């Protein structure tokens, strides 16, 4: 079956598929949605980008002149070195801990059924279904009570609350699709639990773990609400520092805020591009199948 699908099409067949593809109504709808989305997205990204490189900009199409001075100004003014360090530290810690806690839990949920499993699944579903601000307010209140809010630990703990369930819920279907007979076969051949985990399961799980980590990383760097509610002055991540920069405006120039926003977007973009080189988040499920059919 797979061989039939994978067979390389001839030039003529390609031409026919292309014509057929443009004959589909779905293609036109998709092209329209994509075009509309992309034009507006370009506008939304273009304005701050142009502004951050511009000298003065009032009602013309583009700024009057070009300069890069706002980037240096923003770096010094908002002490971005410290902010970037905090952001990196928080996100790496959140990814590491959520994978360490989440993947074993996902394995247990995927492989075993037990009384009260639905309740446990609900427990993992709720932090994702409830908006962060809803549980963030009581959570921040509790963290303040234990003097953890305002510290890096508090920020990491708060960010773990949606991340652990996220890892569990993305990894559970992934693990379910791995044939349990592979593990059984390894055990039959005399592998101990340790080597089943290390040499059989882990290589199969790596694509899923990478995808889940990437998504958690992007979520954490971009997570505004929870960090905003629990961060103190020296535990702000970039996204929260940006928000405060806008709100405590006044003397701050619009351009240096835009420059900071562009820096945030650039760093997120780098993360995303790196991520997409290593793992295709859209193929969480099919990858496993491909590996099975093409050993």
């Amino acid at each position, binding site marked *: 079956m797979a061989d039939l699908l994978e067979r390389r099409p001839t030039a003529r067949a390609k031409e026919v598929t292309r014509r057929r593809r443009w004959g589909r109504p779905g293609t036109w709808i998709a092209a329209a949605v994509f075009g509309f989305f992309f034009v507006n997205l370009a506008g939304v990204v273009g304005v701050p980008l142009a502004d951050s490189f511009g000298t003065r900009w009032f009602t013309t199409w583009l700024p009057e002149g070009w300069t890069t001075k706002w980037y240096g100004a923003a770096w010094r003014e908002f002490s971005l070195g410290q902010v970037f360090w905090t952001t990196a530290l928080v996100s790496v810690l959140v990814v590491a801990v959520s994978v360490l806690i989440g993947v074993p839990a996902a394995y247990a949920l995927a492989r075993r059924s037990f009384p009260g499993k639905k309740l446990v699944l609900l427990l993992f579903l709720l932090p994702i279904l409830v908006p962060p601000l809803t549980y963030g307010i*009581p959570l921040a209140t509790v963290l303040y009570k234990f003097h953890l809010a305002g510290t890096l630990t508090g920020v990491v703990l708060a960010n*773990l609350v949606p991340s652990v369930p996220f890892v569990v819920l993305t990894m559970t279907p992934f693990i379910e699709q791995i044939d349990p007979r592979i593990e059984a076969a390894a055990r039959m051949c005399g592998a101990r639990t340790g080597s089943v985990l290390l040499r059989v399961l882990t290589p199969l799980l790596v694509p899923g773990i990478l995808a889940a980590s990437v998504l958690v990383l992007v979520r954490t760097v971009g997570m505004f609400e929870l960090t905003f509610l629990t961060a103190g002055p020296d535990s702000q991540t970039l996204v929260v520092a940006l928000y405060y920069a806008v709100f405590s405006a006044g003397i701050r120039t619009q351009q240096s805020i835009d420059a900071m926003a562009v820096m*945030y977007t650039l760093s997120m973009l780098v993360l995303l591009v790196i991520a997409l080189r290593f793992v295709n988040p859209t193929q969480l*499920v099919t990858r496993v199948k491909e590996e099975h059919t093409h050993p």
Partner: protein
Amino acid sequence: MDRTLLLAAPGVAFLLLLFCYPFGYGLGLSFQPKDGGGALANYRRFFDDPYLRETIWITLKLAVPAALVNCLAAVPVAFRTRGPFRGRRLITTLLVMPITLGTVLTAQGLLGYLGPNGWLNKALRGIGLIDQPLELVHNYWGVLASLIITGFPFAYLLTLSYLTGIDPSLEQAAATLGARRAQRFRYVLLPLLAPGLAITFCLSFVLAFAVFPSAQLVGDPRGETHVISIEAYQAAFQKFDYALGSAIAMVMAAVMLAVVLLVLGWRSLLYRGATGGKG
């Protein structure tokens, strides 16, 4: 005792400690009003004051359309980009890119792009479609646009991963049996995709319902986009009335769970049966 089950213990313990306990603490706190007046005083205060009560409708009016638009737009795009074709990676990256923008850049961009002197109004006036600039920022539309831009990538990624999770041989079987493309979509793919779509809608709705920074930055936080999260935040961390803040947070959670249960309940009424692997 099955030792595999112990693997789930740290995750469960973590959530009990940092999710359930604070939630219960907040729920308890919401029944202990700061100024006295009985256990329900905070809730009575919220529902008696039209300015506070209205925040529920304002938030729903923003979140439901945003989630609907995102889901409906995600389906055709996901369908089109599920198979391999040249430039697929580039297009997928572009579609997912808004995740990287963050609320502040989106807000700054929307203020500039949709503003009275922004590129959109300039272009529309340039081609003679409108005489007066459209008012698109510092009101409802700015916030809705921000929600759609930030929410679409998530809806798209989820839909795509549900769609690629459907076994292609089912569609091939339908084609072999003579089903046309529309029939294959309606009778094979859509029922298999429905659970995924319901979950996608719920997650998009939840993302949009928690709108907070964009309502402040591109909206009209004292009027048209006075959303419930602004009120909860102000009560808890600006007026330091944690009890009222928790009460509003509980109202938020209740409204949101009601919508999610409604959607999932509706889904299971419409369709019962095996789902495509996930669901």
